[in-house]
């Protein structure tokens, strides 16, 4: 009886841990934005300045977060290529970046949530590096796009 109880307990515990891991995996498996080295981060003020340059000198900018948020407001000229936390989003990013020269400055951004909780930037950054892009930076958004870009007066546009 005691062995049965122990076996049942282990079974229940294993199941609970597995279920938790499966669910926690969506938050804990994706690379955190904090894995992007500081040297590969760019601040909003700097990017806003860069975007004033003539077309060919501007970086290629991809929003790798939420399409619903992209539609509400995004950096002018940026292209939606996400979400980075999902395979389909990484596939879209790979497709969108296919014709970009490997040495071109690419900036990815998200702004869905605080930097250390963003599930999209890390995988997108890793994807681009694995594809051979040598000059990738991530826009550092401390809290969210609304507060750290729009509210600061940097330009945005709506729609697709």
């Amino acid at each position, binding site marked *: 009886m005691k062995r049965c109880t122990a076996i049942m307990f282990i079974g229940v515990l294993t199941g609970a841990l597995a279920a938790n891991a499966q669910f926690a995996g969506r938050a804990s498996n994706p690379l955190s934005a904090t894995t992007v080295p500081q040297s590969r981060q760019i601040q909003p003020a700097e990017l806003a300045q860069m975007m004033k340059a003539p077309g060919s000198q501007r970086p290629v900018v991809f929003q790798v977060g*939420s399409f*619903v*948020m992209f539609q509400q407001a995004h950096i002018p000229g940026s292209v939606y290529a996400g979400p980075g936390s999902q395979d389909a989003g990484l596939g879209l990013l790979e497709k969108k970046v296919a014709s970009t020269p490997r040495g071109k400055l690419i900036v990815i951004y998200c702004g*869905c*949530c605080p930097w250390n*909780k963003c599930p999209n930037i890390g995988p997108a950054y890793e994807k681009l590096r694995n594809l051979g892009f040598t000059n990738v930076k991530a826009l550092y958004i401390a*809290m*969210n796009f*609304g*507060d750290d870009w729009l509210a600061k007066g940097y330009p945005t546009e709506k729609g697709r």
Partner: protein
Amino acid sequence: MVHRDAPNFARTDLAGQEINLKHYRGKVVLLNFWATWCAPCRLELPEFEQWQKKYGADGLQVLAVSMDDGDAPVRRTVRRLHLEFPVVMGDARLGEAYGGVLGLPVTLLIDRDGKVTAMIKGEADLGALESQVKHLLDR
């Protein structure tokens, strides 16, 4: 947004029910914008489910708006978290109606007269939020 009438919306929730915000006049509404990929959101939602059970009889109604791009992951998450309050799919239009939902989570408290009394951007202090809910319910 705070102290203004909450913008009305009518959506069909994941269970196929029509959800019209104005039908909840007389109740205290906790309106939460979230997404399946938002870790802080997933931590809050089970708490809101507990509050719905605890305060529903006193007039609390939790409504959740998913800002995911598709409903399949939302349905899976709702099942996993055992959420029973209405969940509708949001979009850019609804986000814009609420001043632009450009970060998640966003949680609003709407009083019994339909006025927004609080708008919390980001992860909420759940203790403080619950106090605000109880205060509105006591009015």
